[in-house]
């Protein structure tokens, strides 16, 4: 991983956010235990308390949150951030929104997500590829809830396999078996040191199943496969591997984002990004860059739509303010 270039080097999140995102085993077990014993209504204040602790102690995460919110505010003409200069208050709301996402995620994992309702936008695109028995590669992001997308797919009999980057696959899989056995069957754990997982992805796509990948961070196995694009006015590097894979396998690429609208309500947006990735033999880089740029445009649109649901609490653009003074 290389964050010196300012790109979204994989899983750089620190503190609580890093724990929750990367799925520390003890953290997952503890919060799942609380949810089971205390229920949602008592788990939420507990998660708020934990998030507040990390908001107070995780200065790099806080600065990254404020820097991101300021990027959004600078590009927002409507909505609550328009004309404002976000500071600690907005950052704290950003952290609390992450807490809500964690609790919703637990609900889905633990089979308590039946009460969640979904607004569907563009889900008919799945019908088309399903009729043709074609698997699509779905690009997601640490934006909204990947699990809500997966949960809706399960409710509508759309088979979505989720690629998870981890060098700790066996232990993580054991946790999923404990918490949500049906979910484990739909996970593809990617070990950066192995080439096998990519063939597992191909097998699922060949069966007409869909494969979802979080494509907004450079992961350890991406090596030098990254493309520089503009996102919210700044340069970031995004992984090429998902797009290259779609091009090699000839499958369509969709972007799917599930945004929390209110308690127990998510809006799921499905956008076809490209029907087929064109990878010219003499200039593959250009073919990949065109698709990655469109993906970044989608991310920007959804960041502006739901600013507090971007869950990359690290210096994504490499320009978060140092701790020179207290933010306002």
């Amino acid at each position, binding site marked *: 991983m290389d964050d010196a270039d300012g790109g979204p080097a994989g899983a750089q999140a620190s503190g609580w956010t890093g724990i929750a995102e990367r799925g520390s085993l003890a953290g997952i077990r503890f919060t799942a235990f609380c949810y089971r014993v205390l229920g949602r209504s008592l788990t939420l204040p507990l998660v708020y308390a934990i998030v507040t602790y990390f908001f107070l102690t995780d200065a790099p995460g806080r600065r990254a949150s404020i820097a991101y919110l300021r990027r959004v505010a600078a590009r927002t003409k409507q909505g609550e951030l328009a004309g404002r200069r976000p500071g600690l208050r907005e950052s704290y709301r950003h952290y609390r929104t992450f807490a809500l996402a964690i609790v919703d995620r637990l609900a889905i994992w633990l089979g308590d997500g039946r009460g969640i309702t979904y607004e569907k936008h563009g889900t008919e695109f799945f019908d088309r590829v399903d009729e043709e028995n074609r698997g699509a590669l779905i690009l997601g992001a640490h934006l909204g809830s990947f699990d809500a997308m997966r949960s809706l797919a399960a409710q509508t009999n759309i088979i979505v396999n989720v690629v998870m980057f981890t060098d700790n696959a066996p232990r993580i899989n054991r946790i999923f078996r404990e918490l949500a056995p049906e979910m484990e069957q739909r996970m593809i754990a990617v070990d950066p040191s192995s*080439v*096998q*997982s990519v063939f597992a992805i*191909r097998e699922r796509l060949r069966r007409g199943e869909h494969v979802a990948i979080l494509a907004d961070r450079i992961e350890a196995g991406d*090596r030098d496969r990254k493309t520089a694009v503009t996102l919210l006015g700044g340069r970031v590097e995004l992984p090429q591997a998902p797009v290259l*894979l779609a091009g090699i396998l000839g499958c369509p690429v969709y972007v799917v984002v599930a945004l929390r609208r209110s308690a127990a309500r998510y809006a799921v947006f499905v956008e076809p990004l490209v029907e087929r990735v064109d990878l010219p033999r003499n200039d593959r880089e250009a073919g990949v860059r065109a698709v990655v740029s469109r993906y970044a445009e989608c991310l920007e649109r959804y960041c502006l739509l739901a600013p507090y649901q971007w869950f990359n609490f690290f210096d994504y653009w490499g320009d978060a303010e140092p701790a020179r003074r207290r933010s306002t």
Partner: protein
Amino acid sequence: MASRDEIFGWVVDVLREEFDFTSEALAMDTHLIDDLDLDSIDAIDMTVRLEELSDISFSDSDLKSMRTIRDVVDLIDGRR
């Protein structure tokens, strides 16, 4: 029906065309990962190209056995 030498030629051609290796770098015992530093995307790319050339579809388990160029040649040769 392609001979083993022809199959070896396909593999060498794919590796030269797709990944810019020189012929001198490619021998039967060349290890795909240790010597050529292929990663998972390279491996799937090579596999798809070889499937097109040989008209053979590789399964997940086939691919697990491919470590050297000789393994690839053996696999295709054994399926003809």
